[in-house]
Structure formats: structure tokens, C-alpha cells
């Protein structure tokens, strides 16, 4: 074990370089900066916004409309101009992003249910969130006023009826059922909540797999390029220990790097989501449906992720042997990236159960598919699929380690190369 730890220490020393630290710090800084910028933009969008108003009507209805705008956090500023053209020009020159023109006779025509539109002008001074949000809010205000006017009319005509029942005679109560649990709520909002909570898992997984694989492939390729591998293979330590030390060191450094990246990502998401209120009732629905990960769920997910990382490291070790130098090692990373990207996108955009059988078999044969599916399988209590996935990955890993150890125990570790021009393996 002493020799193994000696080798492991060296591998970690080789991987943890100043460049790695700088790259990680830079990424965290960048995520933090973007997150803070986004937070600032969102805050800006939620603060009091100025709206320039040209009220040519001055009726009780137009006043009611403007009162509603004030309730929606708008600061109403009346345009001092008399005509529409001048009002547009004046708003353009000011810092207001919105101009609302209420035409003369608006109140009267609305009371007769004759269409006379109000006009809104949005000055797009940037494509930021705050720049585009105002017109949407204004639209919501107009909708609310429409509802108010129609409700008022219906109340006068049918004083015994609820206006909402007249406008929407058919109502639905939505229920979501997961396994044997049921809760009242919308399936789409449950899905989007679960999606937003579990989006982080595939991202972590993809980053760890690609990071660790790149480290293993590069570590072996660098040994070849720097002509240190031959010496290492003649020192008194088992070949399996050489393979395992490289895999373990890369796995550890990859894991730590991914955690640091995720801290940066959390800053980013925290900045983006911190001030967005989450609908209170969705939490109750999720709780009733049992759609949150328990401690056991997290352990299962962790085991699945770990098994996938082991598979990636073993695969990368074999690919690393094929590399002649650091440059060719980068090209050899491509198969691993593809194998991770396929299930990554499938898990986002498609339902595994709706795929054709050959495609499903192909996707499930990729070991990295299983941790991508693990979160939803845990939530939906498909434990058999999870355990089978973990078992498959462990078998896959054992086979790859056996192949890697065989390669390192024979001439092939020095003689096996991938000749791109000849497009074949040479042994």
C-alpha cells in the first residue's frame, strides 16, 4: 500500500497545477459575476418603472386604468404634450420605457362596448430582462382592466349571477397522480418544478465524467509523451496499482473540480433565482406526491453517479493507452463526450419509454444513461430500474478494468496505438 500511496501522491501532484487553480478560480469568479449581473437586472425589472401617459379621455374609466397601473408598481407620469406625435417624441427623449396613449372618448365607447383601442409604445433600449418585461406587465394590466369592465357589465345585467361563471361556464379541477399518491394541481407545473430541481444532477454528472476522463487520458498520454511511462513500468509496483492510482487520482481531482464548478454554478443560479417567488402551493403538491428526494434517494443517486464515474475512468484509461501524445489524447476524449452527450440530451428532450426498442437498447447500453435516468426513477419509485442500472454499470466497469489491467500487463501498453491515417488499431 505504501508504494500505491506514493504513486497516488505523485499523480495528484501532477494533476493539481497552478493552471488548474487559476482556471477554477476564474470559472467561479465568472459564474458569480454573471449571477450578480442577472440578479441586478431582475431587481431592476422589479423596481418601480416609469410609464409616460397621454390621457386624452380623462374619464373615470381612464383614471381607473391608471390607478391599476399604480397598483402594479408603475410610476405614472403624465405627458405635458397635447398631441400623440409630440408625446412619442417626448417619451423617446426621456428615460421612460413605456408610453400609454388613451384616446379621447375611450370611456364612453367602452361603456357602449364599441372597440376603441388604447395605444402602448414600448421603447426597446436594450434586450435585457428589464427592457422587455414592462410591455408584458402592461399587457397584464390591460387584461385585468378588461376583466374588470366585463365583470362590471355582467353584474349590472345579471345581478344574481357570478360573472366568472358566465365567462367560463366549464371549469376543471386538475389532479396529478404519482404511483398511489394523488394531489390537486397542474401536471405541467409539477413537471416544471421537478425539472428545475433536478436539472443540476445531469450537469454535475456530465462535468465530472468529462473532467475525470480528460485527466486520465491526459495523464497516460503525458507519461508517453514525456517518456516516463517506460521507467514507471519497470519499477517494483503492480501494473494494476499503476492503473488504479491514475484512475483514483483523476477521479478525486475531477470530483473536487466539479464540486468547485458547482459552487460557481450555485452562485449563478442563486443570483438568477433568489428573488423569484416560488408559487406556495406547488410545494404542498410536491410534498403530497412525494416528489422530493429523501436521504435514501440521495444515497441511491450518489451510488449511480459513482458507478458512472468509475465506468468513465476505466474507459478513459483504455483510450489513454491508444494516445501517442497529449494532442492525440484530446481527440480520444471525443468518444467519451459523445457517450455522455447522447443520454444527456435524451434525458432532457425525450421520454425513454416512448423510444423504439432498438434505440432504447442502444441508449440503455451506454452506461452513462443510467444516472441520468436515476433521479426520475427514484422519484417515481422505479427501484428495479435503478438497481439494474447500477448492476450493469458495475459489470461494465469490471470488464473495462479487466481489459485495462490486461493491456498494462502486456506489451500492448507500449505498442498499441491508434493510427488516424490508417484508421485502425495497431497491436
Amino acid at each position, binding site marked *: 500500500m505504501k508504494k500505491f500511496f*506514493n504513486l497516488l501522491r505523485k499523480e495528484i501532484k501532477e494533476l493539481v497545477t497552478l493552471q488548474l487553480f487559476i482556471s477554477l478560480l476564474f470559472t467561479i469568479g465568472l459564474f458569480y459575476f454573471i449571477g450578480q449581473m442577472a440578479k441586478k437586472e431582475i431587481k431592476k425589472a422589479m423596481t418601480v418603472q416609469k410609464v409616460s401617459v397621454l390621457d386624452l379621455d380623462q374619464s373615470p374609466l381612464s383614471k381607473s386604468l391608471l390607478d391599476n397601473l399604480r397598483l402594479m408598481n408603475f410610476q405614472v407620469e403624465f405627458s405635458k404634450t397635447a398631441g400623440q406625435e409630440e408625446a412619442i417624441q417626448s417619451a423617446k427623449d426621456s428615460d421612460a420605457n413605456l408610453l400609454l396613449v388613451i384616446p379621447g372618448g375611450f370611456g364612453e365607447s367602452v361603456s357602449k362596448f364599441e372597440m376603441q383601442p388604447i395605444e402602448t409604445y414600448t421603447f426597446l433600449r436594450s434586450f435585457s430582462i428589464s427592457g422587455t418585461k414592462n410591455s408584458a406587465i402592461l399587457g397584464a394590466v390591460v387584461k385585468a382592466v378588461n376583466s374588470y369592465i366585463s365583470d362590471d357589465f355582467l353584474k349590472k345585467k345579471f345581478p344574481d349571477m357570478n360573472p366568472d361563471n358566465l365567462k367560463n361556464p366549464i371549469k376543471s379541477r386538475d389532479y396529478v397522480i404519482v404511483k398511489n399518491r394523488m394531489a390537486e394541481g397542474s401536471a405541467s407545473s409539477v413537471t416544471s418544478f421537478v425539472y428545475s430541481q433536478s436539472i443540476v444532477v445531469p450537469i454535475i454528472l456530465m462535468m465530472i465524467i468529462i473532467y475525470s476522463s480528460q485527466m486520465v487520458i491526459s495523464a497516460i498520454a503525458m507519461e508517453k509523451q*514525456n*517518456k*516516463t511511462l*517506460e521507467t514507471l513500468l*519497470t*519499477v*517494483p509496483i503492480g501494473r494494476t496499482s499503476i492503473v488504479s492510482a491514475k484512475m483514483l487520482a483523476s477521479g478525486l481531482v475531477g470530483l473536487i473540480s466539479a464540486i468547485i464548478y458547482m459552487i460557481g454554478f450555485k452562485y449563478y443560479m442563486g443570483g438568477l433565482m433568489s428573488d423569484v417567488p416560488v408559487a406556495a402551493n406547488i410545494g404542498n403538491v410536491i410534498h403530497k406526491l412525494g416528489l422530493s428526494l429523501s436521504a435514501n434517494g440521495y444515497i441511491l443517486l450518489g451510488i449511480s453517479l459513482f458507478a458512472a464515474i468509475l465506468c468513465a475512468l476505466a474507459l478513459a484509461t483504455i483510450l489513454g493507452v491508444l494516445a501517442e501524445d497529449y494532442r492525440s489524447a484530446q481527440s480520444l476524449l471525443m468518444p467519451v463526450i459523445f457517450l455522455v452527450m447522447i443520454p444527456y440530451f435524451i434525458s432532457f428532450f425525450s421520454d425513454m419509454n416512448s423510444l423504439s426498442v432498438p434505440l432504447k437498447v442502444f441508449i440503455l447500453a451506454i452506461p452513462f444513461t443510467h444516472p441520468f435516468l436515476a433521479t426520475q426513477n427514484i422519484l417515481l419509485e422505479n427501484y428495479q430500474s435503478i438497481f439494474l442500472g447500477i448492476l450493469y454499470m458495475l459489470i461494465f466497469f469490471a470488464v473495462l478494468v479487466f481489459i485495462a489491467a490486461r493491456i498494462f500487463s502486456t506489451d500492448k501498453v507500449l505498442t498499441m496505438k491508434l493510427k488516424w491515417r490508417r484508421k485502425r488499431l495497431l497491436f
Partner: protein
Amino acid sequence: MKTVLQVDGLKKTYGTLEALKGVSFEVHEGEIFGLIGPNGAGKTTTLRIISTLLSPSGGMVVLNGFDLKKNPEKFRELISYLPEEAGAYRNLTGMDYLRFMSNFYAETAERSEEYINRAVAIAELGNRLDEKVGTYSKGMVRKLLLARALMTKPVLTILDEPTSGLDVINSMEVREIIKKFSREGISVLLSSHNMLEVEFLSSRVALINRGIILDTGTPQELKEKYSAPNLEVVFRSALQ
């Protein structure tokens, strides 16, 4: 004189290519045995097989009574191999590299320190040993690697083209180090296509060409046998 290494009928094939066609020689205790021949003669393949990097296709290799095929781990404990154009880990300091390598051989911390001190004395790199290997010149790296190969005083030191790519001064210094350690009783098996270098260093030499040993003897014996002034002429005559 005790035989340290015995190579008998060693063969190696790569597909249809026969790299070694039955190579046989012996290395005695405390001698420098040189394998000389042109590029592609089979020198490196022979050394790589003895170093356990390649597996032989036929024949026998015995080191201190241990058979290569049965005990490759024992071989790795007893030998030290310096490949041609070998490198050291660029991100480690010279001292870290020596410590890393000594830990594979030393059972105790005291023994490890002993190996490192010996390597420091051989390399003669002074304070530069505290700097990263990536900052070393080619000559400095070669001296560090030679120090690494000799620090454990192995039963057999295998040196493949020990002065390859070095300038005259560095080559002379490396040769002096090898000579000095041989006088202390270390057996050395080296290969070179520089026949004059081998003539200067070796107690005995084997002439190898196209995977076959043409002749074996001391440089003096071979020069007398072929009536040649140096080993280069000996080699040309042996080829004819």
C-alpha cells in the same frame, strides 16, 4: 566470476517481423557489458525484454537465478532501467522525483534517505534539485535519471544509449559516473550505436545486427581477432 544475467536464445516477433532471432549472452557481476549495433539491430528490444517491458516470443532470461517469465516482479526489484530519451515528471522538483522513485525500492525512511543522498551526489545538480524538472536542460535531466538508476545500487543497471543526445562534456561526465559505479561492483548492461563509447566503457561487448549476435568478447579480444584498430572496424569485419 558470478553470472548475474543469462540470456539464452531470446526471440521476439512483431507480427511477421522477427526483431530478435535467438540472442544469447551473459553479464557477469561488476562488469559493464555493451551491446553494440546499428539502429534497428535489436538492442533496445533486448533491453526492453530484460526490463520486463516487452514479453519474449521465445528463449530464456535468468537474473540471479530468477526466470523472467515466472518472476517479472522479482526482475523489477533487482534491475534499474534507463530508457533512451527518457524523461522525468516536469511538474515535480528534482528532489521530489528522486524521493518518489526511491520510495518504490526503500523499505524504510532511512533507506530512502540513503538512496536520495547517493543520487544527489551522483547528479551533482546542487540547488537546482529544488527546482522543477521542467526547467532543466537535457544534460541535467539525463544526469538526474542516471542518478535515479544508480541510487539503489541494483543487481543490474540497464542503460539504453546513456549519452544519446548529449553534448561532449555531458557525455563524458555520464561515462565517468557509469565507470565509477561499475568499480563499486554494480553490473551494467548498456547499448549504444556509438562503438567508440562502448569500447571506452565496456569490459565485454556483443556485436548485434538484425536480431543476431555476431560475436562476443572483450574489446581487446575482438580487435585482435579481426585485426582491427577499433570496434567500428571490428563491427564492419564481423558483418562481412
